């Protein structure tokens, strides 16, 4: 019985570490979203892109402040909300570790006729928070046409009179795995950090690799299961589970 309690305590400690780390990212992103909403209300008529010029610096600061887990961040404007273009996306990616310098602008192909067309208005990270009006962690998913690796996007809506813009922060599974493993410090039993739809975010079992779907057989062996963020499970819909041998 004592073993079971120890595992439970370890899961709780790990959940807290993850929830704390992600929670602070969400809070800073919400501040930026608040500034976007305010700027839209202050603009006369339909705002131009220049109304949101402050974002470049705010997002650069945000990326460098959370470089332990964040690899990129940006804003996707509600379709038709800007005077200049029907669709507009501004995204920045952190420079690789070790090299200094400002985050670099990521170009997306917004031409609907292109094979590589990045139709952000149909991506879950845009549609989910637009529909619910609430922050949410979307993924893991492979962002083809975007950053082309497996990521999780923390999304925060910024409602304005011209539509709801979405601010996003990209976490890579690689960085999250580090947070998870260093907090967990446990090899046995198998513990899995699970995203919605049963996708594995991280695990301490080499057989259950990041980015794969957890097998039904493994789900039948679940012993302990807890919400990573019990205070706000819609924002961070992740679970930590441990498996029976």
């Amino acid at each position, binding site marked *: 019985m004592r073993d079971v309690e120890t595992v439970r305590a370890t899961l709780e400690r790990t959940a807290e570490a993850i929830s704390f780390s992600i929670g602070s990212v969400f809070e800073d992103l919400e501040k930026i979203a608040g500034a976007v909403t305010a700027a839209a209300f202050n603009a006369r008529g339909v705002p131009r892109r220049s109304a949101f010029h402050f974002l470049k610096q705010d997002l650069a600061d945000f990326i460098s402040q959370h470089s332990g887990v964040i690899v990129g961040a940006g804003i996707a404007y509600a379709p038709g909300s800007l005077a200049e273009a029907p669709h507009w996306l501004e995204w920045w990616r952190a420079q690789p570790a070790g090299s200094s310098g400002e985050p670099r602008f990521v170009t997306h192909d917004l031409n609907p006729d292109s094979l590589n067309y990045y139709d952000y208005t149909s991506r879950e990270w845009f549609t989910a928070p637009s529909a619910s009006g609430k922050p949410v962690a979307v993924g893991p998913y492979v962002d083809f046409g975007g950053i082309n690796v497996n990521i999780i996007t923390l999304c925060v809506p910024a409602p304005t009179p011209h539509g709801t813009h979405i601010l996003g922060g990209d976490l890579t599974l690689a960085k999250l795995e580090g947070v998870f*493993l260093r907090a967990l*410090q446990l090899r046995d039993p198998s513990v899995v950090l699970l995203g919605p739809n049963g996708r594995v975010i*991280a695990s301490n079992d*080499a057989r259950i690799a990041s980015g*794969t779907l957890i097998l039904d057989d493994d789900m039948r062996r679940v012993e302990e299961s807890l919400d990573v963020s019990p205070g706000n499970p819609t924002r961070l819909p992740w679970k930590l589970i441990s498996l029976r041998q």
Partner: protein
Amino acid sequence: MQNTAISTRALDLLLLLRGSEPEGLGRADQVSYQIETAILMGILAEGDRLPTESVLAGELGISPITLRQSLAALRTKGLIETSRGRSGGSVIRRQIELTDTQLRHKLRDTSTESLRDLGDLRAAIASMSARLAASRADPQNVAHLMDLAKRHADTADERARRRMDSRFHVAVSIASQSSRLTSAALQLEAELMTLWWGHAEKSSSQSILAQQHMAIVDAIKERDPDAAAEAAELHSRSETEYLIEQHLKLTMQAGEDA
């Protein structure tokens, strides 16, 4: 020490390594990288003599001036030695040995996700190579595979066994008679060579890997494509899991030290 000219096969493999280099290198640096990788993988060994500059430049599709820049960089690193005269030319001087610490850091910093992704591609290449080899390998190919599998099993030194494992996998792709599969296999093996493979404390896991090699060779010899593909996929998965296992251990250790 007698220096021997490199074989046509070694030269072919060297040429197939093109494309494995990191992005953004100039042509001279790409060629240095290609030759370094070949040394790292044991395709080029100490004492091997490279072809004359004009022949090698022609094979690599670069100008002699560019080749001279590449060779100068390798000389500076002490990897090759060049002498003038009739019996002159460039000779490989030493094996590249990455330190345990370098290999460990590289494996620790490579995420489970990218190891899994690397393993996925390796399984795809290995199983298709084995499948094709089962219907295309001639007796000579099979004998060579058998020999490599045996030498791998008999090698005690960690690094040497690792190189033998790589050569085995590349040889399966060669036996499939597909140069694109071989090129892809080579490049993957080169990447895997820069990771930490641990010490064989558990001889049982080593003997399992050796048995898996034998199963692949047997299926190729029996001309059973399905069995060959299945054996190769199983083997790739085992090796990938083994690597992820080491990565998980190293990452947790790093957390304890911090």
